[in-house]
């Protein structure tokens, strides 16, 4: 096991680094060795020790002077949809198999400025489209708990790398559940913050009104340490928010909210969560939810009740309709975003063609995998003349109704909403690949949150029943801009339970 996994979290490791008990270089060396030893997980798409060690040396030089930014020396890695100088950025696609970006994504830049040391680029579903990392052009990533199971997706490599202890934390992106679901399947913690709080500059776009970057780590306290420097207004992202309902969108906002919540909970002694109302939507517990998942999630809610919270049954009637709504809007936005891949300025260009149109069509058909092409086709169709109103605008109207459902719940009944992340534990790699919509239906609990732009987390809360005793995640959904408070809630649960401390034995 690599050196960094001997520490309970980023805070403890940071102390050891500043006391020079361990160096950034030693941590990086050790992580790189572990990554190589576990290459069979296929979590990484590009590792370059020279690039990593150069970052480690910079961190060590700062630490030697008694300085060092907040994450100096901490081993992390980036999902391969964040563009990076030096390392390739493929988005899990043949279209960008050899692409090297001339600039860093804002998220990459900010974590670099915070001193974090990147171990490389992580496997993902192609262009972030998928729920199992099986749509990667470079092979599936594997679940560290069971090499024949998917790690989830689209941030499968990110969740697998954290669960296997290869890095302390990883960046992911969540458009319809792609941080929450792999975190759940791999028994680690992940958060998707409120839409607009983290910059999308340099994050290869899939669905622009839905995409949001978020960290994956072992527990809520580590998520906080990574989310804080990642977040904040960025003028280069046109959808980056300057204000969060009147408060400036700065990194400190999240830490302040976390600290305030912790203080409030501490002040309530043995019933820290007294006054917290947890909404549990009845639609999340219908047919299709596996018994073992339901059991683990119910037990987790009871744990919150034992900490003083009150459970309230609520209804989110449009829950199932989030599926067609998302699978109209996301493909529509994707068809626009992916139109830039035309073989002209970068990316794959077909070797043979007769004219420009053929060059473009052939390059795209060769470069994009089946799921990506499927979604581009759906998106193009719903935006086309004669169908735009009936499909795209109708989906946007249903989107508003979904937002209203959540707002009514928060206004009248509860402070947070809890439920499952996925209907089952991780499936076997290769299962159910014939029906293109089978995976889509399993996104039922995560999609509505994305459509609404709300913040949400997944934290480990148990394991499935034998023979598929794989991790189960609890989803915690907050109202807008409550990511700091959500992390504090999750942290309180993680003080009372030890699911987040379980680690897989990797071959």
């Amino acid at each position, binding site marked *: 096991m690599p050196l960094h996994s001997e520490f309970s979290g980023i805070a403890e490791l940071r102390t050891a680094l500043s006391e020079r008990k361990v160096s950034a270089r030693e941590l990086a060396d050790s992580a790189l060795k572990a990554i190589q030893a576990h290459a069979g997980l296929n979590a990484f798409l590009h590792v370059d020790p020279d690039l990593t060690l150069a970052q480690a040396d910079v961190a060590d030089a700062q630490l030697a002077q008694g300085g060092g930014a907040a994450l100096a020396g901490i081993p992390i890695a980036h999902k391969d949809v964040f563009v990076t100088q030096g390392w390739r950025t493929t988005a899990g696609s043949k279209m960008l198999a050899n692409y090297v970006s001339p600039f860093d994504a804002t998220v990459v830049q900010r974590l670099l400025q915070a001193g974090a040391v990147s171990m490389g680029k992580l496997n993902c579903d192609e262009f972030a489209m998928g729920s199992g990392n099986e749509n990667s052009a470079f092979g599936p990533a594997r679940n560290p708990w069971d090499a024949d199971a998917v790690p989830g997706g689209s941030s499968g490599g990110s969740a697998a790398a954290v669960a296997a202890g290869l890095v302390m934390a990883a960046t992911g992106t969540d458009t319809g559940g792609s941080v929450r679901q792999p975190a759940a399947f791999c028994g680690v913690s992940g958060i998707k913050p*409120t839409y607009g709080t983290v910059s999308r500059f340099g994050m290869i776009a899939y669905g622009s*009104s839905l995409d949001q970057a978020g960290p994956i780590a072992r527990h809520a306290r580590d998520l906080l340490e990574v989310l804080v420097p990642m977040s904040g207004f960025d003028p280069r992202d046109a959808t980056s928010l300057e204000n969060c309902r009147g408060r400036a969108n700065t990194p400190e906002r999240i830490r302040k909210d976390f600290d305030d919540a912790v203080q409030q909970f501490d002040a309530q002694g043995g019933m820290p969560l007294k006054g917290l109302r947890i909404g549990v939507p009845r639609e999340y517990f219908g047919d299709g939810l596996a018994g073992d998942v339901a059991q683990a999630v119910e037990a987790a809610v009871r744990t919150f009740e034992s900490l003083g919270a009150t459970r309230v049954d609520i209804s989110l009637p449009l829950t199932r309709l989030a599926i*067609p709504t998302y699978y109209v809007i996301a493909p529509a936005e994707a068809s626009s975003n992916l139109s830039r891949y035309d073989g002209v300025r970068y990316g794959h260009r077909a070797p043979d063609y007769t004219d420009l149109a053929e060059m473009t*069509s052939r390059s795209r058909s060769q470069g994009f995998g089946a799921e990506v092409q499927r979604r581009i086709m759906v998106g*193009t169709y719903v935006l*086309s003349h004669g169908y735009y109103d009936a*499909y795209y605008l109708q989906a946007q109207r249903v*989107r508003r109704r979904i937002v209203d459902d959540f707002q009514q719940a928060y206004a009248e009944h509860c402070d947070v909403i809890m439920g499952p992340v996925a209907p089952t534990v991780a499936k076997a790699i290769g299962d159910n690949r014939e029906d293109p919509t089978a995976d889509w239906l399993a996104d039922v609990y995560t999609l509505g949150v994305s459509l609404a732009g709300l913040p949400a987390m997944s934290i480990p809360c148990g394991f499935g029943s034998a023979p598929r005793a794989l991790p189960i995640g609890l989803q915690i959904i907050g109202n*807008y801009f409550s990511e700091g408070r959500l992390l504090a809630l999750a942290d309180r649960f993680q003080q009372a339970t030890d699911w987040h401390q379980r680690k897989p034995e990797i071959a």
Partner: protein
Amino acid sequence: MAIQKENVTRIARLARLEFSDDAEISRVQSELSHIFTLIEQLQAVDTAGVEPMAHPLSALQSISLRLREDQADPASTEERRQCLMANAPAQHDGLFLVPTVIE
């Protein structure tokens, strides 16, 4: 919901995708038909008087898409331009090369 073959080829042209043969077009047609059966569920939702929502937070606070000054950021050096064009499949003298469009 059944998708017509002509629609598949029309949409493929709009999307700049090509399908290799009739068998592939049929496969895509069948997949899209299956997908649109799912999407048709939206038609049953009552959305009378509901405005479309493009940005998820637009009901919560005023969202304006910022514009920046229309000022070109010069590439500034030959070296920087080369760096920006490093991924080009074909280039010459700072130009991206494509098949002739206008004779």
